[in-house]
Each structure stands twice: as structure tokens, then as C-alpha cells.
């Protein structure tokens, strides 16, 4: 078999040159020990772009680090090679095989003393006061070792790493992660990209409002021209959601059990599984019409408000093999939508009772949009990307967009929420404005019919403008050469799907786009994160202009590096 392998190796370059893909001329030219006339036309090393051997250095590994999962894979692939979690089973000692014990599956795991809900499934949390960074390092190192050895199967050549991180991360945590990647996995350089931007890229957009409903918190980031413009967060996210689900399940289990039985205490794994399998979200807001104000004419949501009541109430049977005694619990289907309702939208609480960090999601999105400059808001509101683990909950996206739509209709884009004694007047003004607008719209529609009749001349404001041939030609030209009209959509609430931050990172690495934040191994090992320059942006282009003996060292090498958003 080894001879076969040798043969293959021997013939491989031959094949390649026959096919003529990459004759490695630059290789030959750059080997110093055997001086020879450069074959063909190799560029002098000063100006030449890096040849075959350097090119390989551009090979990337793409990682996305979230607080509960790490995804890893290679550029150009649409899905990560592996998605690794950090559950207690992943944290056992070597040689501890109890998770394969058949009896293990029937034991309910208790939460550790002093641990939060789901804490032993987290890689890190942002509040570093509660985090043992050493433990984070251990967990991350083990996960990465699994990824490299089991899924990546790389050869010895070190690969650069493209790392997708949330845009706000404590430096201590970052350097812990970077330490592992640089020291244990020998990455020559690591490019950091912020995940909202990658989500934007994976949606094919330049500007977007990225709603990342993650584990510990929901981040709403406004991205414009691939830059984070504004950001807000709320703790209404996956953790709260699964905790609510546990409450619902506990209540259902207690109902089922005898009176004297101990209180049910569903473990995190069970709640999480139920949530991801049969959890859902009502796609229409429940009737809180008292608070919502709809103008008479434009109320598309209004008619659909009432849920149709189905005569046999649909129910889902959920097995609980870990409960004592094991039980098949039948939960009304509507009940399974409750957690999302309570955790993410909290419709029963008045808005003024929320703290800043726990706004319901639709209000959070609305406020983020409200805080944006008007032209960016126009772009962002019609490019709402809902991503993150929880966003897979069926119905959630529809619901969020509907709620937002309703909010916008109710409030408009007025940052003043209460005009006090002047509110009546304001209301009236608004209504009048709206009615004017509608009237005009309607007349506009009618006008076509009328113009066909053309018996009465319309007022100038309502007439359709005269068609200018030049204008038409220009518009036609721009239409043909410019972006398609969908690129210009703005001002309406519209959701756009994304492939996720990892896919975005994979796309970027595939196109070999250099990131702003690129950390070289040597420099990092010398200075750590302190070595970053204070400026947020280091111009990529400026650095490369410098010509001289240093140019040959490598195209991407920069004099200083920055931490960009993370600084």
C-alpha cells in the first residue's frame, strides 16, 4: 500500500503540469540553494505576488466561537465540519466512559450546587467575575483538539485561522482563546471578524440590522457598509427561554404526578431538547389590542388576530425517560409556545417595568432602529436579519417582524413616547397626516382611471410628472448597469435570511479577503493583546505601498496591528 502511495505521489505533480493548473515556477525561483535561471517568466521577488508556496499559507481554518458552541470548518464549504458543544459529557476525565453506560441515559442529571441554569453547558460567559479563565482554556483546548484531530484531519502545515467572534468580548477572555490557538495549534496568524458583519455577508447584504438571539443575550447590531453602527442587547435569549420551558414542563409533570410526589425538576438537557424539538412561537401577536393602536385603514394584522380554536386541542407527547418513574407526558401544543411568549416578548408586563437590559425583543429592535440616523434606518429596517440559535424556533421570525411592524405603525419613528398634556394634539396631527397621506395615495390610484377619462384637470401636485425622454434613458441605463432594484429597497420592514456567521466567515475566507484585525503569531506571543496599536483601523492598502527590501517578506505583513472593534 505504501508503494502505491509513493507512486501516486510521484505522479501527482506530473498530472498537475499536464493539466496545467499551477506549474510551480515561483517555487523554483525562490529556492536559494539551487541557483538556476528562472523558468518561464517569473516575476522578480520584489514585485511578484506570492507564488505557489506562499499561496498555501493562505489556507484558512474558519472558526466561530459562541458561548455554547464552537463551529469549525474550511473556507468555501457551506456548513462547518463540526459543531462542538460543551456539555458535562464533554468535560469528563479521560478514561471516563460513563456516558456510554446504558444506565446513564436514565439518570437525570442534577444541576451543580451554585451553578446557574445551563452553566455547565457554557464555554464562557461575559461576566468574567464568575468565570474561571483556566477552565475556559481547558474546555476550549479540548474542543479544538477534537476538531483538529477528528474533523479537520489536517496535515502538518499550520493554517491561518479566521475567527468569528461577537464584537464585544472581554480582552482577558479573548487572549485566553487566542493563547490556545496560537500556542497549541500553531496558527501563523489569526484574523478576527465580528459575527454580525459575517451574518450580513452571509445574507448578501452591505447594511443590515442583525438580531442575534443567542444563548445569554440577544444582540441587535445595526450594520452599515460592513461596519457596526449601533448595538443594543437584552438578556431575553436562549437561556431565559429554556428556563421558561423547564418551568412549563415542571408544571405539566407536577400536574401529572400524584399529589404526594416530589416536585419535578427537569434537567437542562431535557428542557433544551424539548425546546429544540417541539418548541414554537405563535406567529401572530396575542390580542393586546388595548395597547396597540391601529389606524383604521392600515391594519393588516387586525383581522388575523384571533386564533382559531381547534376543537380537539392538539397536543404533543413528550417522553421523559429520566423522570422517576419514566413517563410520557402529553402537553397541549399551545402550551409549548408559552416559553417563547414569556421569555422573549413578555406581553403581560408594562413597558415601563423593564430594565434596560431586559427589554422584550421587538422593543429592543425598535429602539435600535430608532437610535439610528434616518438614512441608515431606512436601509436597516428593510434588512432585518434574525439569526442565532434561538432563531430556529419556528414562528419566531414571523412574530418578531409582525410585532415590529405593529410597533412602527403605532408609534412611527418618534423618539418621544409621551407628549404629556400635548399628546392629544400630537395624536390629532398624526392622524391628520396619515389620513392626508392615504387620501393622496387613494387618489393616486384612482387617478389612472380618471386620467383615462380626463374630464377634469387634476391639481398639479397630484398629476403624474411629465415623462422626460432623457430621464427615462438615464433610468434605463442605470437599471441595466446599476444594481437591480431590490438593492434599493428601504423604508419597509422586511426580513432577510442569512446563512449564519460561520457561512459568512467561510465566504470571506474563500474570497481571500484580508481582515482589518489580523494578529500575527510572533507579535502576539511577544506582546499579547497589549501589542495592538490604539487606532481602530489600520489601513490595509497604505501598508502595502511601501516598496523596498522589506516588500519581499510577505504581502500581508503589517507594521502594526489593531484590535478594531474589539479594542
Amino acid at each position: 500500500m505504501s508503494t502505491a502511495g509513493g507512486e501516486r505521489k510521484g505522479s501527482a505533480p506530473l498530472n498537475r503540469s499536464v493539466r496545467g493548473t499551477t506549474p510551480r515556477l515561483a517555487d523554483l525561483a525562490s529556492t536559494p540553494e539551487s541557483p538556476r535561471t528562472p523558468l518561464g517568466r517569473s516575476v522578480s521577488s520584489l514585485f511578484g505576488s506570492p507564488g505557489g508556496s506562499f499561496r498555501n499559507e493562505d489556507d484558512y481554518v474558519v472558526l466561530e466561537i459562541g458561548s455554547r458552541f464552537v463551529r469549525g470548518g474550511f473556507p468555501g464549504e457551506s456548513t462547518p465540519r463540526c459543531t462542538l458543544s460543551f456539555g458535562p459529557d464533554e468535560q469528563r476525565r479521560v478514561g471516563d466512559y460513563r456516558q456510554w453506560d446504558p444506565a446513564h441515559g436514565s439518570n437525570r442529571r442534577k444541576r451543580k450546587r451554585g451553578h446557574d441554569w445551563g452553566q455547565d453547558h457554557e464555554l464562557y460567559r461575559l461576566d468574567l467575575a464568575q468565570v474561571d479563565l483556566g477552565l475556559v482554556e481547558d474546555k476550549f483546548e479540548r474542543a479544538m483538539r477534537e476538531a483538529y484531530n477528528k474533523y479537520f484531519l489536517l496535515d502538518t502545515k499550520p493554517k491561518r485561522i479566521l475567527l468569528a467572534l461577537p464584537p464585544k468580548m472581554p480582552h482577558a477572555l479573548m487572549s485566553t482563546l487566542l493563547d490556545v490557538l496560537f500556542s497549541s495549534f500553531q496558527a501563523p496568524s489569526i484574523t478576527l471578524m465580528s459575527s454580525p458583519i459575517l451574518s450580513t455577508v452571509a445574507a448578501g447584504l452591505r447594511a443590515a440590522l442583525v438580531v442575534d438571539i443567542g444563548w445569554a443575550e440577544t444582540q441587535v447590531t445595526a450594520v452599515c457598509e460592513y461596519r457596526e453602527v449601533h448595538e443594543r442587547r437584552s438578556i431575553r435569549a436562549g437561556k431565559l427561554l429554556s428556563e421558561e420551558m423547564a418551568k412549563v414542563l415542571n408544571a405539566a409533570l407536577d400536574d401529572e404526578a400524584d399529589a404526594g410526589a416530589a416536585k419535578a425538576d427537569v434537567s437542562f438537557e431535557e428542557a433544551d431538547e424539548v425546546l429544540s424539538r417541539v418548541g414554537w412561537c405563535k406567529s401572530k401577536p396575542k390580542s393586546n389590542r388595548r395597547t396597540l393602536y391601529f389606524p383604521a385603514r392600515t391594519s393588516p394584522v387586525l383581522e388575523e388576530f384571533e386564533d382559531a380554536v381547534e376543537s380537539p386541542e392538539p397536543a404533543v407527547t413528550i417522553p421523559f425517560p429520566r423522570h422517576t418513574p419514566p413517563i410520557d407526558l402529553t402537553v397541549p401544543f399551545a402550551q409549548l409556545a408559552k416559553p417563547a411568549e414569556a421569555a422573549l416578548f413578555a406581553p403581560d408586563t408594562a413597558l415601563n417595568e423593564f430594565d434596560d437590559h431586559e427589554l422584550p425583543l421587538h422593543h429592543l429592535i425598535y429602539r435600535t432602529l430608532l437610535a439610528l440616523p434616518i438614512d441608515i434606518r431606512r436601509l436597516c429596517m428593510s434588512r432585518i436579519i434574525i439569526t442565532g440559535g434561538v432563531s430556529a424556533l419556528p414562528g419566531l421570525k414571523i412574530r418578531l417582524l409582525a410585532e415590529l411592524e405593529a410597533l412602527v405603525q403605532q408609534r412611527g419613528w418618534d423618539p418621544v413616547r409621551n407628549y404629556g398634556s400635548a399628546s392629544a394634539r400630537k395624536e390629532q396631527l398624526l392622524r391628520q397626516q396619515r389620513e392626508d397621506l392615504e387620501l393622496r395615495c387613494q387618489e393616486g390610484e384612482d387617478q389612472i382611471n380618471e386620467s383615462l377619462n380626463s374630464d377634469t384637470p387634476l391639481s398639479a401636485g397630484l398629476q403624474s410628472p411629465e415623462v422626460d425622454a432623457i430621464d427615462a434613458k438615464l433610468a434605463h441605463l442605470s437599471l441595466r448597469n446599476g444594481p437591480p432594484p431590490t438593492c434599493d429597497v428601504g423604508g419597509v420592514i422586511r426580513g432577510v435570511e442569512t446563512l449564519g456567521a460561520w457561512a459568512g466567515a467561510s465566504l470571506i475566507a474563500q474570497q481571500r479577503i484580508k481582515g482589518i484585525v489580523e494578529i500575527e503569531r510572533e507579535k502576539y506571543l511577544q506582546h499579547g493583546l497589549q501589542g495592538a496599536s490604539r487606532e481602530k483601523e489600520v489601513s490595509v492598502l497604505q501598508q502595502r505601498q511601501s516598496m523596498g527590501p522589506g516588500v519581499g517578506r510577505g504581502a500581508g505583513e503589517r507594521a502594526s496591528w489593531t484590535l478594531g472593534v474589539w479594542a
Partner: protein
Amino acid sequence: MAQPFPYTYYACDCFDSTTTTASKRASQVLAAAAEEDERDFDPRSPRSNYSLFPLEHLLYCEDCQQIRCPRCVIEETLNWYCPSCLFEVPSSVVKSDGNRCTRNCFNCPVCTAPMTTNSLDTSGDNGPPYILACPYCHWSTVEIGIEFEKSTGISSQLARVANGGKHIPTQKERDKERERKKELEERRREGRAVMSPSEESPTTDTEREEVAPSHDELFANLGAFYKSQMEAQTPSNPFSSHDINYSSPSAYSRIVNLYSSTTSKKNKRNKHTPFREAGSALEGLTIHDSAADAAAIERIKREGWGSTLSPSTKHAQINPNLRFDNELRPLATLLCTKRSKRCRSCRHILSKPETKVTSTRYKIKLLALNHIPRLSIRALPLNINPAQQQPLAPPARPESAFNYNGLKSGIPTHFLLHLSNPLFDPIRVTLATPSTTPGKVQSRITILCPQFDVGANTDVWDDALASTLSPINRTSLINDAGQIEAGKIWDRGRNWTSVVVEVVPGFLKPVAFPVLAEDGKGGGEAEGDDGGLDEDEDVLEIPVFVRIEFEADVVAEERGLGVSVGGGDAKKGEGGAREKREVAFWTVVGAGRIAPL
């Protein structure tokens, strides 16, 4: 529980040394430095899970003279092979075709058992169609509507069939199709623009595709879109094209910027035609569509729990964004690798398997087993009298009767620590242990003889021939009160010695007066009791610090770098200078589980 009792774990301290101080905050650094010296190893701390290993999992670097755990080695892949068909996959194929077997090996997506190719032919001569079936859980590709025409080359067949039997276009076909559609759209747009430029509506809804594009397709569309944009972005090259690789944008920007000082104006003018965003599904834009979500809800309502996928099944799938069981795909078997391991600090090879896939032998294998004394523990027979009468009899029977899972709180129990020496030099051992075990259940531990010698691992026959080591008179060890005397070893053989450890297992719940026990934390304690014990907190694990000293030949330095590292120990060379060596490490001994009262 991790392993059957009793067991021993060895701690590798590499994580301590690799943690750079940069990642710790100042207060932590100070605290760590302060207690660095007299800190006991805590088997209860969550970090210990990452530093404890069974001895069999550890390697030993002879040059650094240290244990090497999987964390402190560098691994290099020697070859790739499929564990199911043992086909060796060349590295180029791994690079191009990914990390999975490209032949006929598949795992069941539900239970991960290897799947078999079965024929659905009822006539008996195993003709087509074929299916993949799981012999364990009886899942088969029939459930997702896939059948194969041939029994070989399954993975290439599978790549062309979507669930339900529909044809998946290949990458090339897809690209072609995309181009065609794009042109079509372009033409339509032009036509419309000519007709009525003013009234322009988004064109996407005029012709909706019957199926939403798959994840892969979207990704390919996006990729193609970005590529075309990048190409449009960078102007056509100023030089002749044959010697610079223009597929790289960095090369482009370099060339553009070479002359930016002279032709800056021109550059600036044509540089800023910004990259636009994707405008249609063909370019990867998907507008949120509520139909899919509604359908999913409807389906959950209708079909319930059984049709959905568990999280672990989902994560195992190639595309983890699935929800229902008819979206499952059989999983091609992950390739395995043979890897050699090097010491992280000195880069010497510690283990190197033979490259042949079917061979399980190693060319180089430096096991800690051969360099580190093996420490083991077992219960001392409860009644010492039989042992007294026949000291040489193997204590098999009474030991098997001992219930390691039911240690009794508060009753002193004796264990034998057995230390065997794999080295060819006699060693002097010092054991140390904290007097009480860390954690919530505090057991008292006393090693009765913490310092002793262990003989060299000489020829087995030496033992038989030389009768210098007379059996120890056990009676002298046990005094009149029936207690074992401290300071003396229990037993000794050619290269092993055993000593007695006395353990008083702690109480799982605070005894008697919980309020008095800890007045300060009364409330907290009570609350903790409600929560009960965490998993494995009732396991009696004894951290033991082992320090061994011995004199060995000075060999490591003189030896050529890694030349004769393999196999036999070259230590026997007499006459060389002797040097004193010292090895110290923490071990954790799992003695048993404390039974609740």
C-alpha cells in the same frame, strides 16, 4: 464510577506551565503565586478533569524527563484511512474530498452504527435497487426515499440524489443554471426597462421558484456573487497576464497600488464603484418567507415528537439546520488518522505508529508506564488475622468481598497503596497527602509509612535466585490492640512495595448538629443539603503527591538527539557517571464510594 474502583489517575501539570500570565488578571496572578508552593491538588475542581489521566494514556519524554499528556504533545498526521473499509486515503484526496470516506461506508444518522448495503430485489439475486440500512436500529434510506442503482460507489450516487429521490444538480450544472437564469433575468429587466422605466417593481415575486433553494445552493450563489463583484471591483491588470497569479485580490491591490502615487487621480476615480449587495435569489438573497415556518409548526402539531430530531442527531449531520426526520442523510464515515506525537517543548518524537493501516505496531512508543512508578490501591482485608496466618497467600478472596461502592462513613478503613517500579534503578519514594480530602465530604487520610524504598526492576529471575528480601513479618506490624503500626511498610517484592493507608470516610451529610457544626454558614449549609450532593461527590478520591528519587546513568544528554530513543532502554551502560534524579507528580486515587448512612 469513572472507572471501576479502585483506580488511579495521574496529573500532568502542563496546563499550569502553559498558562501565560497575560491571560490572568493581576489579582489572580498574585493569588496563584502566593499559593503556588503549598497548593494541594484538588480532584474536585472542574479543571482537574482536564489534567488527570490514567497512566496508560500518558507518554514520557526522556529528554525533558517529564510526563507528557495529550495536551502537551504535538500531533502530526501520518496517514488517513477509513476505519470501516481500511482504505488508505491519500492526503490530496483528503484535501479535495473532505474528511469522510468517499466509497461505500456510511453510518446511521440515528444510532451511528455502520450501515450495510442491502438489495430490495425480491427475486433473490441481489439486483437493484439497493438501499443503505442500519442493522442496529433498522433505519434505512427507504425512509427518506432514496434508492441506489448500484451497490458500489454509494457516496457518489448519494451526492446526486436529494431526499425523496430528486436529482441534485452538480456544482457545474448549478453554475450553468445560475448563469442561464441570470441572463434571462437580465434580459427581462432590460425589456421591462425599455417598456416602462418608471414603474418598476421588485422582480422576485413574478416568478417564484417552487422549491426554496437549499443551504448549499444559496451558499454557492452567494459565493459566485461575491466573486463576480470582486472581479468587477478590481480593474483589468496593467501588466501582461502570464506570470502573476491574478486570482488573488491581494496581488491585484498590490499592483494597483504600485503606481498609485503617479496615477492616483485615475485610480481614485475608478476605485469607488462600491460593491453592491445581492439583489436576487440567484445572488444569494433570500427574503424572509413565513410559509416555511408555518409549515414547520403545522407539522410539529400534526406529527409530534417522533418526527423531530434530537440535538445530538442534528449536530452530527453535515448540515445541522434540520428539524424533521425525513431530512436526515446517511453519514459517510469519518476518516481516521494515524498520528505521531512529539513533545511540545523539545520536539522529540514520543510515539510513532507504523504507517501501514492494518498494523497496530509502533515504531517509537515512549510510555509513561515504563518510566513512572505505578501506584495502585486496594482494600486491605478487613480482618487481618487470616493474612497474619498465611502472609504469602494472595489476598484474592477477601478482597473480592470488599464492597468499594459502600464505604462506611466514620469507620476507619485500611487500604494498601501498592507502588511498583518500572525503572532499572532502585527508587526512594516519598508520599504525601492532605490530611483531609478536599471537597464537601471530608475524609481523613493517613499514610502510615510515607517514605520507603522500592527495588529496581531487575530480571525476574533475580527475585527467585536471591533470597535477600525475606518476607516481612506481618505480626510485628500489628500491635496488641490490633492496630497497624505506623512507619513500617506492609509488604515488599522484587520491584514493588506496599504501604497501608488509613482512611476515615467522611459523612455525606453533616453529622448530628448541623446548626452547631458551622454556625457561620448555617443557612447556606442547610440550603446545600436540600440540593444534596453533586454527581460523584460521594466518591472517595485521595490526592497523593508522589516524589521519587533515584540515581541513574547520565544518558539523556549524551545520547544523540532522538537517535536511539526507540524501544530498549539504553540505560544499562555501566560505569557512566551517575546522577541523582527526582520525579514528582500528583496522583489521584479513587478508593471507593461512600455509602449513605
